[in-house]
């Protein structure tokens, strides 16, 4: 009743405003800025931002695209939170992000607005409540409903303008590997741990030879050092749980796991596992692995263990008791923390405690894990050789896993065709070129997978006009996402209106995208409805709003 009344009043006011315009118009909206990384390093992002700026200008805005390198952009967005308007941004997919908690909570909860990941300054108590509730809900179906609600709130408020979920494209030689043995992990693609364990050789060639353009920085179970490195240590080290091909947690070094209330998980360790040096994997090793990350010597892993209150051992059963309920614990901690041998790492960590350096800068000569592949050799900036651990409970079918560092993308494609590589682990070039090359060659198979990660434009909610929901909704509606997909990503992406990717089928709310209406007329209509006026082609604030920027 009250809201209808308000709507009537607003309409009446609007009519009045329209009649009296331009006297009743607010300040003209200042030049708004949008940050983007350079074309040379981020061609798709740059192209998307150009398209978006063009559409926004049609609404009567003066838009300035400011191009800056990542170091500078992250510095501005992260540390000068009141000083920017909008920026291109991206979140990358990682197996542990298969659980929606990190994205749903950290990106939008008001507690992370000051210093954490909510750098846009989104504040919504209703949303906070949902984000907190899903954290503590261990029943998957109930939690799913909450995650859906969160997605719908975000779709309504448009704190960000979601653009696309890009596709990852990889290829392999189907004369060397049995095509049916490839595993396409949802949100990740075919280059994943499951594929490397399952690849089945067809003939004499039994070594997986793949490329990366980036050097391996470290093979260190206590240091999160970057993308390529994780390909290696995910094979050398086991975890209690692994994120399965479907994006849901799967018992791994744990034979089984069970929630015993919302703060207690009991994990039963698989029997008969061995470290690569022959010693048995014990529950003490598991306990040690989770204690090592909070020892102060592994700061990057510390957040994954900081919620653990205590760890108890009873035979093969390890019971984790948490400080606060966390439904995501299984995926984001148990499937994230590498199991490391106590007999190797305990002396190292004790020694490091007396020194300034921490475990992140410690590189073992021969990393010892219990994973499906054993470390053999590492030649600086050239190659890494792992050999199959035939005693593993899920032993790989290939003999060796060899990672070659190939900085030149044309050379990588040439090598795949000539047989120097048999698995394309990374291709930064145009996916169409790869598909054409595969057609020509005949021996290659290309697979594209929708990523878990996403690209978006972040709005700074601290600054007008972005503090107005109607304004954000209109700006977001101004751009047809299919335009971005086709013009900037050449079709290798899918439109997005949710921070949860459609590749995470269980958690993804398809309503968000289905209900997104876009186009210039839609956007202009929204602005008009909210009272924004056009004067001399320039957009003005509604009513008699004065533009004030907090200093």
């Amino acid at each position: 009743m009250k809201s209808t009344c308000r709507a009537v009043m607003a309409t009446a006011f609007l009519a009045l405003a329209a009649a009296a315009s331009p006297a009743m118009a607010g300040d003209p909206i200042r030049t708004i800025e949008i940050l983007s990384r350079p074309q040379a390093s981020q061609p798709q992002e740059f192209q998307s931002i150009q398209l978006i700026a063009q559409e926004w200008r049609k609404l009567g805005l003066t838009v300035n695209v400011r191009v800056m390198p990542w170091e500078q952009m992250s510095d501005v967005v992260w540390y000068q939170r009141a000083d920017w308007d909008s920026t291109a941004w991206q979140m990358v997919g990682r197996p542990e992000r298969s659980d929606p908690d990190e994205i749903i909570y950290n990106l939008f909860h008001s507690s992370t607005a000051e210093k954490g990941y909510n750098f846009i300054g989104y504040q919504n108590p209703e949303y906070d409540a949902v984000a907190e509730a899903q954290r503590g809900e261990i029943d998957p179906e109930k939690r799913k409903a909450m995650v859906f609600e969160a997605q719908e709130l975000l779709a309504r408020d448009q704190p960000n303008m979601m653009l696309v979920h890009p596709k990852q494209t990889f290829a392999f030689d189907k004369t060397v590997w049995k095509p049916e043995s490839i595993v396409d992990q949802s949100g990740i693609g075919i280059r994943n741990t499951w594929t490397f364990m399952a690849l089945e050789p067809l003939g004499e060639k039994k070594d997986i030879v793949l490329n990366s353009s980036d050097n391996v920085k470290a093979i260190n179970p206590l240091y999160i050092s970057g993308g390529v490195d994780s390909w290696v240590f995910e094979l050398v080290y086991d975890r209690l749980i692994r994120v399965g091909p479907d994006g849901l947690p799967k018992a791994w070094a744990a034979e089984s796991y069970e929630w015993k209330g919302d703060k207690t998980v009991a994990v039963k360790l698989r029997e008969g596992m061995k470290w690569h040096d022959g010693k048995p994997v014990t529950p003490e090793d598991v306990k040690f692995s989770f204690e090592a990350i909070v020892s102060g010597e592994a700061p990057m892993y510390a957040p994954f263990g900081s919620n653990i209150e205590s760890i108890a051992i009873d035979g093969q059963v390890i019971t984790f008791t948490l400080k606060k309920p966390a439904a995501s614990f299984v995926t984001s901690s148990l499937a994230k923390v590498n199991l490391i041998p106590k007999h190797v790492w305990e002396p190292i960590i004790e020694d490091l405690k007396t020194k300034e350096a921490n475990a992140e800068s410690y590189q073992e000569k021969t990393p010892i894990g219990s994973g499906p592949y054993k470390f053999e050799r590492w030649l600086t900036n050239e190659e890494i050789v792992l050999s199959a651990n035939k005693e593993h409970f899920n032993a790989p079918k290939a003999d060796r896993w060899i990672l070659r560092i190939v900085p030149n993308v044309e050379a990588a494609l040439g090598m795949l065709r000539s047989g120097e590589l048999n698995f394309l682990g990374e291709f930064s070039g145009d996916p169409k070129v790869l598909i054409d090359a595969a057609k020509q060659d005949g021996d290659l198979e290309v697979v594209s997978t929708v990523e878990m990660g996403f690209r978006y434009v972040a709005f700074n909610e601290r600054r007008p006009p972005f503090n107005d929901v109607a304004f954000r909704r209109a700006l977001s509606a101004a751009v047809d996402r299919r335009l971005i997909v086709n013009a900037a990503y050449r079709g290798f992406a899918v439109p997005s209106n949710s921070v949860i990717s459609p590749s995470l089928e269980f958690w993804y709310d398809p309503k968000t995208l289905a209900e997104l209406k876009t186009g210039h007329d839609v956007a202009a209509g929204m602005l008009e409805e909210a009272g924004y006026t056009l004067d001399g082609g320039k957009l003005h604030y509604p009513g008699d709003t004065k533009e004030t920027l907090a200093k």
Partner: protein
Amino acid sequence: MSHLKAVASRTLQLALVLWAVVTILFLMFRLMPGNPMAAYIDPTFTVEQQQALMAQFGLDKPLWEQYFIYLGNLLQGELGQSFRYREPVAERIFALLPNTLILTFSSLFVAYAFGILAGAYLAWRRGSAVENAAIPLVLMTRAMPEFWLGMVLLAVFSFWLGWFPAGGTRPAGADYDSLWALYTSRDFLSYLALPALTLAIYSQGLPLLLMRSNMLDVMKEDFVTMARIKGLSNWTVVVRHAARNALLPVMTSFAIAVGYQLQGNVVVESIFSWPGLGRELVNAVSASDYPLAQGAFLMIAVVVILMNLIADMLYALLDPRISHA
């Protein structure tokens, strides 16, 4: 006496040049926009974690203090710790240096051997059709960008003909007992061939043209005329008398070319996935790994300066007419 003095003054000059290089390197990386560690501080870090990381790398201290610590460490041969790899810069540089040196020296050896012979031959055949065709060809190879030449050689000899592998220093997964065993293996030669050929084609122009013009000068000298009058054969005159004298400036240019070649390696190492210092330098710069970039730049600067010194000394040694006064 004067010789010793000359050496002392050269050394002093060297030290000054090095100091200037070091200072410029230090300032250059600190004038870049943004926090020097922005690329390495994960945004999920707490403020305390970020500060701890800054302190670990000494970045919390005032600039002048950082500068003196940097100079002090350099004097002890300490190049600092890489942001990106979290390991000592010196260790990385010395792991990659052998690959770069072998590529540099093998390609320069080929370039100079070919350049000297061809230059002498062209001087001898001055005015012939061969010379008329060869000189524009040489100028053309001098003008070709290395990345283009590299890609063409890669496309033709590796992807099309399949004669040579496309990148790296060894077959995937191949193991060798030592670096020596690798460098003397047949496989290594096939991997070295294309990158070395690219660099050799690119750098043969200088010795060739230098040798040719020196030869033309020397051939006009009295002692050559004297040799001809003595009735010596054409071959003896050209090789034993003229070429030996024309060779001096070419040999000193070799020393300087080593320095320049290290820069050329940057491109070729990236094209042929060669694990060398040049590629690491590019990586370090693009990843804002300032300590590593500084170290790699410094190493290249030291080699260039040293090679210049050697060139100077070689000159004086080979040609007594050049004095240090």
